[in-house]
């Protein structure tokens, strides 16, 4: 305990503390400011404390219906989460076997991770616009005038935006799966196989319980990354926006603490999801440990 600290320890510790302050300070400031009194403005001083700006937010900001944007983003986030977990786990299992073309696939996944988002977004936007043009031509050729008149666009939350989000969340999911399986002891699985378990039984009763606590992390990545996504969604969205896109638009038009209130709300959602993920993950690993003592 009394061992002398290495030279530079305190200097580095101060640097680290300053960095943490730099990370969290501004976020704390807007949480505080979102509770401004009704007379308060965008900066300090605080003119009383109230939840006035949260009520304002619930009524909508300008022409933007915050409530429905929030629900849209929640729905999309949960969908992205589900797809990310399932597809990543499946692909993670695939990469443990002999996967012809696996290195090409891995290269594509990493490329998607580091590709500038605006390019992906533009591409998906183009893809769906060309699809629209194709569908309209077909409808015209088939003489389906009524359907043609009602046809809007294939761009939408659960089509183009969902795909755009998955190109961003799946690389994280797959990389986490690699990290999980690099540390995974195949002995349990082999034992199950030797005892006559089918591949499905081996996965369901042996592999899945072992990796479950980490898979929860993939779900958290899936939801939170989708919940905050802007760059990839921006050109690949249809008529209605997600919450972060609305928020981005509001930064230039809203001049009241309502925007901080919105920030606080989205932060609370992010933190709730993180908390849930940590809770679920530790619950699962506790269960795993309890199971081992049976």
């Amino acid at each position, binding site marked *: 305990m009394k061992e002398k600290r290495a030279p530079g320890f305190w200097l580095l510790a101060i*640097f680290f503390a300053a*960095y943490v302050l730099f990370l969290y300070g501004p976020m704390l400031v807007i949480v505080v400011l979102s509770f401004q009194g009704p007379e308060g403005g965008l900066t300090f001083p605080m003119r009383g404390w109230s939840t006035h700006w949260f009520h304002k937010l619930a009524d909508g900001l300008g022409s933007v219906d915050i409530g429905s944007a929030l629900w849209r983003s929640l729905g999309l986030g949960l969908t992205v989460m589900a797809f990310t977990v399932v597809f990543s786990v499946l692909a993670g299992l695939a990469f443990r076997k002999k996967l012809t073309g696996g290195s090409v696939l891995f290269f594509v996944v990493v490329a998607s991770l580091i*590709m500038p988002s605006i390019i992906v977004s533009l591409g*998906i936007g183009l893809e769906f616009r060309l699809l629209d043009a194709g569908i309209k031509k077909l409808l015209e050729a088939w003489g389906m005038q009524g359907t043609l008149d009602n046809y809007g666009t294939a761009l939408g939350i659960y089509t183009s935006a969902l795909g755009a989000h*998955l190109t961003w969340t*799946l690389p994280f999911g797959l990389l986490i799966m690699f990290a999980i399986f690099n540390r995974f002891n195949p002995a349990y699985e082999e034992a199950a196989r030797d005892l006559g378990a089918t*591949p499905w039984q081996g996965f369901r009763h042996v592999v899945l319980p072992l990796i479950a606590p980490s898979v929860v992390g993939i779900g958290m990545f899936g939801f939170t990354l989708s919940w905050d996504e*802007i760059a990839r969604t921006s050109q690949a969205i249809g008529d209605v926006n997600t919450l972060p896109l609305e928020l981005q638009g509001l930064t230039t038009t809203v001049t009241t603490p309502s925007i901080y209130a919105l920030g606080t709300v989205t932060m609370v959602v992010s*933190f709730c999801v993180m908390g849930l993920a940590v809770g679920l993950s530790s619950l699962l690993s506790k269960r795993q440990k309890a199971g081992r003592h049976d």
Partner: protein
Amino acid sequence: MSSHVPNSHPVSARAPGRTLAAWWQALPLTTVFALFFLVPLALVLMVSFWDYNQYEMHPDFTFKNYLAVFDGCISGDDLCVTFKTYLSTLKFSLLVWLLTLLIGFTVSYFLAFHVRSSGVQVVLFVLCTIPFWTSNVIRMIAWVPLLGRNGLVNDALVHLGVVDQPVEWLLFSSFSVVLAFVHLFSTFMIVPIFNSMMRIDRSLLEAAADSGATAWQTLWNVIVPLCRTGIIIGSIFVITIVMGDFVTIGVMGGQQIASVGKIIQVQTSYLQFPLAAANAVILLSVVLMIIWALTRMVDIRKEL
């Protein structure tokens, strides 16, 4: 798939190296990247050669979009808009890269080599990564009450008598853009560098110390070379993000500062898709060249 496919033979189907089962499992992920990544990229390339008018784009094979991008770049005395924008975006990338590298390395070095308890280490590391899972736009506007005309920083400066008038360049300026980039993306540097540092065999450090190396010598000759991969991965993340950015530059620059990503975004909003696509292809080539220069010898998969 029928049972005639050689790999689905009952015996090999139970063996671990089942290629067919592996393909089925990789199929959903592969489909997503084919539909929403590879096809879109191919379409960007294709459409960059198309022609367009005010209302629509139509198939063609013309270089006019590329010529339009580089209009005036060869003959003019001043730098053309495209070169200016790339120069400014590259300047941001370089500055943000240097700052995030410095901060990321220092923070990781402290966590990896100066924090003794592994429990504390994990907690502090998670503390550095939590903001990554919160909204970027929120983290940007969080600077407004600090840096604005009547913000905390200006108040403090005026109170302390450093300046008479509130300074204007703190917000909606190149300064605030760089600050926000560092704030948002230093995590991308910390995570890979910390990961590399944690893999360094501690006995190497003892050996260096026993051989009489100073802390600086150990840092420079042992630790830095051994975290090269982490540094390169972090650098790729940060540089590609900044090169293609339009959200941070837009919000923190008060929509007044140009960037390559912003050009593409604006052209898309005017439905000038072929022009936007040509710009995207050029941006992609520049980014690929940077990545190629950075990665020549790193195998990312070994790092996980």
